[in-house]
């Protein structure tokens, strides 16, 4: 009879994820070898750089490595989607790095929806950045390759130690590439805080840090659990199977076990073991380990899934390796068709095991999550301390991204990927309200600070880093709001957008003298990707129990962020000095425009948050307006839509104000800034962005923990993003065109028409997605 049950993550085993690392690693190796070869004088004498053919080969290899990794991930992604919806998790144990007691650091790779998204984005961003890198300096190629490789390891890592290792590799390589001591210092502090927080979590999962020191739990290390079906509703034919399941927020939900149709395979039960990696299992009194295939004599090393066992009463002995006792799981009754999971509980370092732990329950109720929530470090809840440290690490990583920005072409996307650790552990943060609040508030502070820095800093040379930092803050808010899917979306947007911005930088770090195509693409990608995720985060936050204060702070943060991004997108070059010696931005409308934008953002957020924000059960104002059009739409979706539309209006106003205050004159002197390009880009973006968003959401829909509500919100926000972009660029185009025509701002009607078109398209897309 099973004592424990729960909706544990099903997984499949693959051998191909590590292949994705081969390309980047080989490219790094070749670049490093070229560096040495060059340095040792076998290159052209007297030359400071490689000969062009060599350089081009190196660049192609680096790009090829990234594309190869992306292709492998895409292929594995296809395999992932070929699996049943609740089994979309691939696992590979590559090698054990260090094992000390229960602390098992292995190169274990995992692929699920979020890691697939982030991995592909990182590979593509890396390939793009390699295309813009000066390949005649192979040392820079090697360092950049280390950034990409480390980021990919971090994305695919199944546990936090490997993730920290990969991030360290990427972060310090990026800092070395930038030659920035500040970046090194901030990143070192970030890693220290992350290690401390994750390490504390490791111990808190398996014991209590009390006044008398650490007291480990007396639970067995490995338990047998019966996997409960994920979302089956409760029916009348319930029998003795578990009738309640615990969701990620610790709430009990009724469920009904899935009864499969009897088949030949059901004559046997099956057993799965994900970890400790490399462990083998002995069944009953057998002296030989269980094998896979079952008819062979090859031991099945963990992770393995679905090993057949005959029905009956069994004892499993899990042999981990030297220095550890075998774990014995006794009295396990396997009925035909049963799916037995040998789950590791206690101090674990993989994300999946940690989140599986809180899903386990006994017939009397949840087994671990209440105990975890009650644990303390001194006077403080342990999970609060853990997430304070992790949030500090993430915030410092954001600072690291900012300090990297002074480089000629900053490689900053690893900083965005680093925020994923909060999303991976978000279900644990959900156990303690104060931990959620810390994430929301600290994320909001980071977002506001970074957005303000982006908007107000006199130099544009750290734009990519600043934008990444601001988005990292948004991801922190998302983790606090439990909006995992949206957080992943923001990370992906940050990776792609920041890389595009970096590509647009000229030698001095400014966005270049002929930047329109690149910078425009960057701004589009950045704003769209970021905003659709931000809308979803706010939507999720409106329902999250983070308190009014959290909502206010988060709303302010998101509005500031949107404003900062918009302003950054239109501030690529200093405006010419006026005769009075004032900058072009000094006009009164220029000063009021940011305020308008911020107010618009806040107003949109406030309108969407009405029930929780203003109190009462009444529908939010915007719901009241749009209810006839969106009966089936949930309020958070509307919220996301409203935020981005409002921010779009603010952005439009901002664009107009910059044009009128003189920026347009500067643009006119540069043909690359011609209004046609704005218009073309703006018109083209809407449908393209929506199609891309549709594709992205197709993947995000299966992202773990991204339930339908969040996915719907993301999609709604995506539609809003199209609206935003249309409003921005349409407004700019119309204004500019009107100036060309008559020198005044009679272009406003045209801009409004464009804006209206995009708003309509956006709303239509939103309604379509929620139909």
């Amino acid at each position, binding site marked *: 009879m099973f004592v424990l049950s729960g909706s544990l993550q099903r997984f499949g085993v693959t051998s191909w994820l590590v292949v994705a690392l081969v390309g980047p690693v080989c490219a790094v190796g070749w670049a490093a070898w070229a*560096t*040495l070869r060059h*340095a*040792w*004088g076998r290159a052209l004498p007297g030359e*400071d750089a490689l000969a062009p053919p060599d350089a081009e080969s190196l660049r192609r290899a680096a790009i090829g490595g990234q594309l190869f990794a992306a292709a492998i991930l895409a292929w594995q992604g296809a395999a992932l989607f070929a699996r049943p919806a609740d089994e979309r998790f691939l696992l590979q144990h590559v*090698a*054990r*790095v*260090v*094992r*000390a*007691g*229960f*602390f098992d*650091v292995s190169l274990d790779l995992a692929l699920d929806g979020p890691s697939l998204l982030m991995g592909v984005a990182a590979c593509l961003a890396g390939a793009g950045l390699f295309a813009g890198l000066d390949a005649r300096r192979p040392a820079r190629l090697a360092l950049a390759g280390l950034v990409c490789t480390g980021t990919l390891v971090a994305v695919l890592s199944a546990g936090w*130690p490997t993730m*920290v*290792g990969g991030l*360290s*590799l990427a972060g*310090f390589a990026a*800092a*070395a590439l930038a*030659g920035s*001591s500040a970046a*090194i*210092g901030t*990143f*070192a*502090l970030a*890693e*220290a*805080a992350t*290690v*401390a927080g994750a*390490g*504390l979590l*490791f*111990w808190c999962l398996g*014991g209590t*840090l009390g006044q008398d*020191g*650490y*007291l*480990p739990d*007396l639970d067995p*290390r490995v338990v047998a659990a019966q996997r409960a079906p994920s979302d089956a509703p409760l029916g009348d034919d319930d029998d003795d199977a578990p009738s309640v399941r615990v969701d990620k927020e610790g709430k009990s939900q009724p469920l009904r076990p899935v009864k499969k149709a009897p088949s030949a395979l059901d004559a046997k039960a099956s057993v799965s073991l994900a970890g400790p990696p490399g462990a083998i299992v002995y069944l009953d009194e057998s002296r030989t380990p269980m094998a896979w295939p079952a008819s062979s004599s090859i031991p099945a090393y963990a992770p393995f899934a679905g090993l057949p066992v005959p029905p009956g009463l069994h004892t499993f002995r899990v042999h*981990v*390796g*030297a*220095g*550890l*006792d075998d774990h014995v799981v006794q009295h396990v009754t396997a009925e035909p068709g049963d799916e037995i999971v040998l789950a590791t509980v206690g101090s674990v370092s993989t994300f999946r095991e940690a989140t599986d732990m809180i899903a386990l329950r006994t017939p009397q109720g949840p087994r671990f999550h209440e105990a975890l929530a009650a644990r303390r*470090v001194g006077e403080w809840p342990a999970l609060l301390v853990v997430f304070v*440290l992790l949030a500090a690490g993430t915030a410092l990583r954001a600072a690291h991204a900012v300090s990297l920005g002074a480089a000629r072409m900053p490689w900053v996307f690893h900083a965005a990927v680093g925020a994923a650790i909060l999303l991976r552990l978000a279900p644990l943060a959900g156990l303690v309200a104060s931990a959620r609040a810390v994430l929301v508030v600290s994320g909001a502070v980071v977002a506001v600070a970074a957005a303000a820095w982006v908007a107000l800093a006199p130099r544009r040379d750290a734009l990519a880093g600043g934008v990444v930092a601001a988005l990292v803050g948004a991801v922190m808010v998302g983790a606090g709001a439990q909006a995992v899917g949206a957080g992943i979306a923001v990370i992906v947007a940050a990776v792609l957008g920041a890389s595009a911005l970096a590509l647009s930088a000229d030698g001095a770090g400014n966005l270049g003298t002929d930047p329109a195509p690149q910078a425009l693409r960057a701004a589009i990608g950045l704003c769209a990707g970021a905003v659709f995720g931000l809308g979803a985060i706010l939507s999720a936050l409106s329902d999250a129990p983070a308190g009014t204060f959290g909502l206010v702070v988060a709303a302010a943060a998101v509005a500031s962020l949107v404003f900062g991004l918009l302003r950054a997108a239109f501030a690529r070059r200093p405006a010419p000095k006026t005769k009075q010696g004032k900058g072009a931005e000094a006009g009164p409308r220029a000063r009021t425009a940011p305020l308008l934008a911020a107010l618009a953002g806040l107003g949109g957020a406030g309108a969407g948050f009405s029930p929780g924000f203003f109190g009462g059960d009444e529908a939010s104002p915007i719901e009241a307006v749009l209810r006839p059009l969106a009966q089936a739409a949930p309020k958070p979706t509307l919220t996301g839509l409203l935020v981005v539309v409002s921010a779009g209006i603010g952005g439009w106003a901002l664009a107009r104000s910059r044009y009128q205050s003189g920026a347009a004159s500067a643009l006119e002197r540069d043909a690359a800034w011609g209004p046609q390009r704005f218009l073309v880009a703006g018109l083209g973006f809407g449908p393209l962005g929506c199609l891309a968003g549709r594709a992205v959401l197709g993947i995000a829909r299966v992202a773990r923990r991204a339930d339908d509500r969040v996915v719907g919100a993301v999609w709604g926000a995506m539609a809003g993003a199209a609206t935003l972009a249309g409003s921005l660029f349409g407004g700019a185009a119309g204004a500019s065109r009107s100036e060309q025509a008559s020198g005044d701002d009679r272009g406003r009607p045209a801009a409004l028409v464009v804006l209206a078109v995009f708003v309509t398209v956006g709303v239509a897309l939103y309604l379509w997605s929620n139909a």
Partner: protein
Amino acid sequence: MRSWLVLAAFLLVLLAPALAMAGPRIALRAGSAGPLMLVQRGEAWVGEFEIASTGDAPLAVSRVSVRQDDDVRVPPRVEVAVEGGAPLSLAPGEARKVTVTWTPGPDPRARQLLAHVVVTSSDESAGEVAMGVSARLPSPLGPLGEHPLTLAILAPLAGALLVSGLRACGRARLERSVAIGVGALHLALVGWSYHTIRPEMGRLDGNEGLQLVDRVVWIRPLAVEWYVGADGRALPLLLLVSAVLLAAVLAHPPPGAQRRRDETLPAVLASAAGATAALVACDLVLFVVGLLLALAPVAAGLASVPGGRAAARRMGALGAGVLALLVGFVAVAYRASERAFLVDGTVVARSFALPELARIDWLHRAPIAGAPPAAVAFTLAFLAFAALAAALPFHPWLVGVHVAAPAPLGAWTAAVIPRLGLYGMVRVLVDVLPEGTRWGSVALAGMGVLTVASGGLAALAERDVHRTSAYLTSALAGVAMLGLSGLTPQGIAGATLAGLGGGLAAAATTLAAHAVAEHAGTRDLDAMRLSVRAAPLVASLGAIAVVASAALPPTAAFWGALTSVVGALPRHPVWALLGAASMALLPVSAFGAALRATSGAEDRGGANVPASERAALGLLPIALLLVALGAWPAPVVGTAAGAVRDAAVRLSPVEPLRPGM
């Protein structure tokens, strides 16, 4: 009166043997002097000895058994059979055979047997007597493969004597070749030890969890034994000794470029012998002798180089201080130890064997000057080991060595001597003084964190490249101390790994500092203006040294730091957090130094390049090892699994509740 007294004394001496024969007397007789060596018969290993009644009264033998006490001492499947069975009675002059059988079975964990067969009889004057028993499964390499640890001690010692002899004979040109050969042999012996050792073996598998044991009586009147053996904690540091020894001799200048009175090579070789002895010693006296043998040649070598006398005096003072503290510790431990047997079965009132000292019940020993003896012993030993480890505030000796010593000697000293201090903590403190270690773990954590922080800060502010590397090196020692303070398997393994990684990083940093200083012609970082193009090998390998000294991936030092912080968290969370924050200083300092050294680069590839490239040549094996172990440290760290578990169980009274934690 006086003549009567003389007569009485004479008679007493004359009659003493006869008096001794009075009553039942027991004697154990093997074919030769003990221990009894078992020989292979089929699948079993068998040996025989006799219990003889040598008195003038019947001898009652009540018990003949393998010595186990209340814990495991011997491997499984050891049986003792007495001719005629026990208990038995022996008439005067009668003897009975005792057959000892060990059936190790296929693929046993313990590949040798070290045991005592104890006999309890009616001979009250002798008390419980024992016969030492020994057996060893054959090695494919014969005696060479059976005694690698002893050979690893003797080989560098012989090498040092040979090098000195060559110099005396005017064959100085062969010195470096001989030293390289000795280094390679040492590495081969350590490699063989790695190949042979079973990582899963622990105390419960017998032989005190030790493998490759060589044990003979060394100084019988003092009950000192040549007792060497290895467990997983020692092997990584043995690898460090081998690697750094080879690197040091590779970095040593060829005969033509040497100074006249350069005693570096014999000093390093002799010190390697001492360090190896200290790492494999299972006898406290041998351990202390090994430490002194490791220190003294370094001081002598320093005294032989220009400007090195001050550093040599510091090393001398260090050695004297460490010796004084350790003698005090040995005295306290000796006072607290109990009756034991030497390897051949000789009964001694007290023993210096570390496994015997590990059985001292410190909580029930009489206080020393009102203080608990465990606390006194811990304080003495901890201060000695902290001084060796160059922890704050004992680090000045290391700075002096960095500044004064030539590259090979500096690298050797920076890499190995502090690691001996750390090993003393991991081995002696943990095994012999678990109560004291628990009591003083806060001091360990605090000193470790302060060492890291002060090292990082000092390196940040320093302009001298040698002093910078010295501070970074000392900071790495603090990482291991922090890990050990956790008293968890993670912390102990982290300390072991940090010892290895930190040692390799220290050697790399020192060699790199010498290389760049020689290349630039200055020790001032701000004035170096190094050009990568001018010395590409130095730059490439120096970059690895910088990354390693910052404890970053992909080097071995990173995993040691990570595991140490995690391991220290449950017992000292605040110190662990501070330690993690302090470690963030290391990358800033290391990268900062590199950036300063390369800023305003000038291409000045001149006469100093060969010297710097030679120093970098020594760095090559270290750098490769750093990266290889950084990518995959499991093969090295995995050997420590059983030993780490034993140490954690010893340290944590809670541990048995969670086996394998």
